[in-house]
């Protein structure tokens, strides 16, 4: 049973850009936030591009492959699944993702990264 979630306020919804990304600083971690109004959902994924070694993923383009939404790195174009953090071009690479919640005008985030996919399945 995971510990109780603690939500913290990050920013307002109008600080986000529909179908695109911005970056937030969450307890010293850089978190890329992608707002998808259709789903009324905000995806939160590590802003650090492990291939390009720079904090840039929030500035990547959103796309879809089948049902999977991804962000393509602006540096070398690797695609990362917004939901799971798995790199679609090299599944050995998995980025941290975070849980978010929209509460009125406010975007809340659970500052502890989610478990990586493989472990999550076992839970």
């Amino acid at each position: 049973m995971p510990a109780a979630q603690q939500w913290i306020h990050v920013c307002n919804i109008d600080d986000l850009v529909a179908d695109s990304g911005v970056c937030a600083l969450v307890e010293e971690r850089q978190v890329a936030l992608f707002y998808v109004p259709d789903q009324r959902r905000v995806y939160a994924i590590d802003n650090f591009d492990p291939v390009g070694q720079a904090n840039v993923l929030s500035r990547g383009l959103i796309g879809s492959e089948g049902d999977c939404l991804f962000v393509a790195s602006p540096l070398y174009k690797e695609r990362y699944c917004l939901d799971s953090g798995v790199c679609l071009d090299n599944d050995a690479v998995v980025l941290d993702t975070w849980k978010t919640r929209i509460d009125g005008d406010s975007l809340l985030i659970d500052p502890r990264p989610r478990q990586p996919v493989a472990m999550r399945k076992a839970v």
Partner: protein
Amino acid sequence: MSKTRLVVVGNGMVGHQFLQSLADSGHMAAFDVTVFCEEPRLAYDRVYLSAWFSGSTAEDLALGQIDQYRAWGLDVRIGEKVVEINRDDRLVVSDKGTTLSYDKLVLATGSYPFVPPVPGHDREHCLVYRTIEDLEAIKASAANGRVGVVVGGGLLGLEAAKALRDLGLETHVVEFAPRLMAVQLDDMGGALLRAKIEALGVQVHTGCNTQRIVDGERCVHRMEFADGATLETDLVLFSAGIRPRDQLARACGLAVGERGGIVIDNHCRTSDAQIYAIGECALWDGRIFGLVAPGYAMAKVAVSGLTGGEEVFTGADMSTRLKLMGVDVCSIGDAQGRTPGAKNYTWLDESAGTYKKLVVSADKKQLLGAILVGDAEGYGTLLQYMLNAIELPAHPETLILPSLEGAPAAGLGVAALPESAQICSCHDVSKGDVQRAVGGGCCSVADVKRATRAGTGCGGCVPLLTSLVNHELESLGVEVSHDLCEHFPYTRQDLYNLIRVEGIQSFEQLLARYGRGKGCHICKPAVGSILASCWNDYVLDPKHLILQDTNDTFLANMQKDGTYSVVPRIAGGEITPDKLIVLGEVARDYNLYTKITGGQRVDLFGARLEQLPAIWRRLIDAGFETGHAYGKSVRTVKSCVGSTWCRFGVDDSVGLAIDIENRYKGLRAPHKIKFAVSGCTRECAEAQSKDIGVIATENGWNLYVCGNGGMKPRHADLFATDLDRETLIKYIDRVLMFYIRTADRLQRTSVWMENLEGGLDYLRDVVINDSLGVAEELERQMAHVVETYECEWKKTVNDADAVKRFRQFVNSDQPDSNVVFVEERGQIRPARPEEKAEPIVMVG
């Protein structure tokens, strides 16, 4: 087993091809090969020799590569000439004193230019045109002269005349025969060609018999002709035919022809079975072949003979297709109609400047020969009719008559060709070879070129090859998907047309009507670019914002560490001292790394996302505009200093460059577009490596299109000459808009041109003759883009919502702690990972 000692004399085009074929045959290891190469460099492409004058270097033209030769295990003697063959002892002796024994000997000694023995032929500044050294001598000689005369109005003579003209000389061609290209053309074709060449400023004198060359009064020489006429000139270039280099063979007693040439049989063996002769030095069936394709065929036959094969040489087709000073000239088979009973069809259109002639058999069923001047379009088809003896249509004249409105062009589909049809004569590749290559897994023209080498010689067969490859792929059911991506089952061109015709204004609209899913990093920027080309809206408008690659989103290029570069427009590379000072001040105040780019402007690196709006505000206040360094759009128009300052300049290249840059700035396209304008033929702005290049001439502007530097350089094609400014701009408008309409995603103009069916001629037809009836529309579209231009940065810094996006964090003012600079040569640079790991002093 001991190896066969093989000596190859001559490393020209055919000598090289022989070695290549031997390597390809897989038998190289069975031989101990020594190559004697008289010239100071390995084989190079003589066919494209003239390109040396337009900037190709000896390296560009090189065919033989020393590393390759070493890898093949060859002993190569560069700059060493064989001076004697001793057949009794099977020895060759070189001018450096080397004596070497051989088991087999291959002579590939080529030919030399014939210089008529008129008195004075050996004066200084009397030159020939065959080797790179010859060209160096011509260039040196031309630098001090004003007038040049080419003796000989054949194929090579006209090419040489073009070179002299491009070197800026007043150029004359003196021909003994009553017409130009006497071998390949008839009187009418020759006359039309002459008119066209004279229109280009080259003076032609036919029926002129040079008697002697003496000191001139106004020029270095005076040429005196049999009819008493004279011509003063500073340079004489002999191009009066070639003679086989058969001296070695002659001296050692091999059979040679009455008028020269080493006699060979069908196996390319000389009268001594241990000795082969190939290329232009060889005489087969009483004939010398002065073209490269037959030489290549001989090389293959000789390799076959040396390796136990059975191939034979059966003669070669001497049809030619040339572009002489921008004029298409083709000659096929019996162009003069000498075959008994032959009948002619001719078509002359003086207004269009075209002449076409068919020579057909008495029963009108077979094509025997043809001439095309001014329009080479039918060449491939006609050649196939003749080579494969394909039965002509009931009305052969339809093959040369202009197609009437709406009627389909009278082409011969590739399907109609027999399997044995030769597609590429340079490398002797048949339709069957191409079919097998496609069957074996090649799925593009590039693959087939690699596998068969078809199309990699003179390039003349590429259009035919392309349609054949496509046809084969389709008939194999290989579905070559042209879909942009999984979200749109359309090509970029389809999408362009849908957007334009239906007036679609946003990605959402397009996706709703024609797409599926959410889009991706492929279709979004492509559609963003099309929307911008069509409607020229602000790219950061919220409905377009999500389409842009990060560089367009933030109107700057992202660098490896996530910072950005700042590139203001410096049209034509011209900048005032005051503006230069502003750049310096901004760079200093924001501590930006500063560098002059390859595009004649200044790039400021290391700006953090959140600094961009403030930096640009300062630049805009000082009168700068965005340089679009981030966009798939017009980049720079490079210029040389031109007639304003330069002593050689013939027109104001800087002024034109600035005007062009201001006209097309902001134009979004499938890929970036670069221009350059040079003030004279010395070409200091390198216009021939640009998408659009312009070079000043005495009579106006020459327009070059579809050049490229970058990964796969391509020389631009000369599109039109001596244009006035208005026509120049009109043509550029049309070319660019047609490119935007029809190119693929991320396709530079160079690749677009390579893939454009019909190539340069087709583009000319569309742009100059308005063959599609779209010229006016293209101009209108361009006018719209020009009228609606707005500096994106100016608009952005004045828009609070847009500026809001330029921040590192939505919830903090801290900078990105991973961006760390260290100092190098007095400026910043991004810290390397190991430098970041250690605590270091941050600058900036």
